[in-house]
């Protein structure tokens, strides 16, 4: 086979693979509404696998068998969850009830009409009513993602079992999949899988660290400000911080809107702004230096488009999660194309 022929075949193979990937992404997007109840538990299981794998590897290095390590970690997590629910169950239930309290716009409208724009009071009132109804619609849309009580119970069984199996046999399944590939693509795909595994796990751990740090600080700040549902609001602020550029603003808007709907107090809203700005400053000064770049920097325009897409698909939860999901997909695509490019080079 001549060098020119090999290059031609390599170029057409690359194009074919690109077309297959594009078709797969389109098919996945089209069938997501039908299989969302399967995707979410699998995604959670994969996330937990990435989280627990380093701990289990540490146990293995100390001489404990992998199965025993996995069993120990899962039992510990389930035990801690049950303990947490036992201690804070009533608090968690009251946090979740806040969704029902959002439907009444009266306090929200009365709060924003206190702003010193007397000549525009009617306009502000109308805008406020519209904003409130959109906000409540987004929150209600998010609740439809979650399944009914019966299937929720099955989820609670499915997730631990699938996490256990992925931790125990994940490497075996990967090896079996790679063994099926023809020799031409074997090394490339093996390299690709390992790079994706490494970069994705690094990225997830970094983002989790950021979200948890911000959430803990926000929960503390909102607790000190005597905000009701401080846990839920703190978690929202933490998750919103995963969105580059707009995240802190979005988180602040959501929390302030909820507070205004519940209390109608502008002073409290101002105090929240100051608290969240302080948290952002602390993050920029202390935490941001600990985060290394993952070389996926989405353009602000793409982020806005993703935020609107997320709100359309899944409401408030969509707004918070769509950008991290997009970043993961972008990371995967980048790695795939880099490997295709590297392995297309001929001598």
């Amino acid at each position, binding site marked *: 086979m001549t060098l020119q022929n090999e290059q031609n075949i390599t170029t057409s193979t690359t194009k074919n693979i690109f077309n297959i990937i594009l078709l797969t992404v389109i098919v996945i997007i089209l069938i997501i509404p039908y299989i969302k109840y399967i995707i979410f538990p699998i995604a959670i299981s994969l996330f937990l696998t990435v989280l627990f794998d380093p701990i289990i*590897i540490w146990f*293995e*290095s100390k001489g404990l068998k*992998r199965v025993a390590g996995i069993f120990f970690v899962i039992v510990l997590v389930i035990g801690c969850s049950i303990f947490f629910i036992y201690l804070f169950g009533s608090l968690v239930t009251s946090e979740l009830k806040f969704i029902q309290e959002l439907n009444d716009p009266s306090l929200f409208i009365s709060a924003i009409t206190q702003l010193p724009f007397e000549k525009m009071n009617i306009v502000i009132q109308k805008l406020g009513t519209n904003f409130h109804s959109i906000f409540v619609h987004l929150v209600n849309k998010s609740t439809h993602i979650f399944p009914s009580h019966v299937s929720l119970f099955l989820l609670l069984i499915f997730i631990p079992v699938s996490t256990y199996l992925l931790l125990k046999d994940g*490497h*075996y399944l990967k*090896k*079996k999949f*790679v*063994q*099926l590939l023809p*020799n*031409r693509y*074997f*090394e490339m795909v*093996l*390299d690709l899988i*390992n790079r994706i*595994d*490494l970069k994705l796990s690094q990225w997830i751990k970094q983002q989790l660290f950021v979200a948890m740090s911000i959430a803990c600080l926000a929960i503390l700040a909102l607790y000190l400000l005597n905000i009701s549902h401080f846990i839920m609001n703190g978690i929202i602020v933490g998750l919103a911080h995963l969105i580059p550029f707009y995240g802190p603003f979005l988180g602040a808007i959501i929390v302030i809107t909820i507070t205004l709907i519940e209390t109608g107090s502008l002073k409290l809203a101002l105090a929240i702004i100051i608290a969240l700005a302080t948290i952002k400053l602390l993050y920029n000064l202390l935490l941001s230096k600990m985060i290394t770049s993952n070389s996926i920097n989405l353009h602000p325009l793409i982020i806005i488009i993703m935020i609107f897409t997320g709100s359309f698909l899944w409401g408030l939860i969509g707004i918070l999660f769509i950008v991290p999901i997009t970043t993961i997909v972008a990371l995967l695509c980048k790695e795939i194309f880099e490997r295709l490019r*590297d*392995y297309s*080079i*001929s*001598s």
Partner: protein
Amino acid sequence: MIRDFSRNGNNHVSIVTLLQTIPFFNSLEKGELRELARIVYVRWFKKDEIIFRQHEPGIGMYIICKGSVKVFRNSEFNGNEQVSTLVKHDFIGELSLVDQQRRSATAVAMEECCLVGIFRPDLLQLINRKPKLANKVLMILAQIISSRLQQKDDELIQIKEKLSNSDIIR
């Protein structure tokens, strides 16, 4: 395909048996060979099938269990130049295990070959999971690389002697 995805223990046992035939792994116990079998890949190549190409990113080495492999380099001046022919229990691509350089040559199967591949990401995971076994495997790989270096040193000395005998170098 179904058999490949089934939890068939026989595949694993045959890989352990294959590893036992490789002289480099004589110092490993059976339990350690079983652990090593979890991370190695057994690949079959047809005659004239390319195993890896020059300038491709390399992530691991292969040990020849059956058949023979031709290694050649493509250079500007000499075109395709055969570097060596390797047979059973020889190894190829070992440098890719220790550094992230691209492949320095192309390897082609001269007949139907069975190769056992050991790759860097799996080796790094073994170092994290089983440090004692990983140390043994790294010592074996160091012996492999050092024997190749010794072989190249010997070849270089022979070439220099030939050149000095023909009075080209003074």
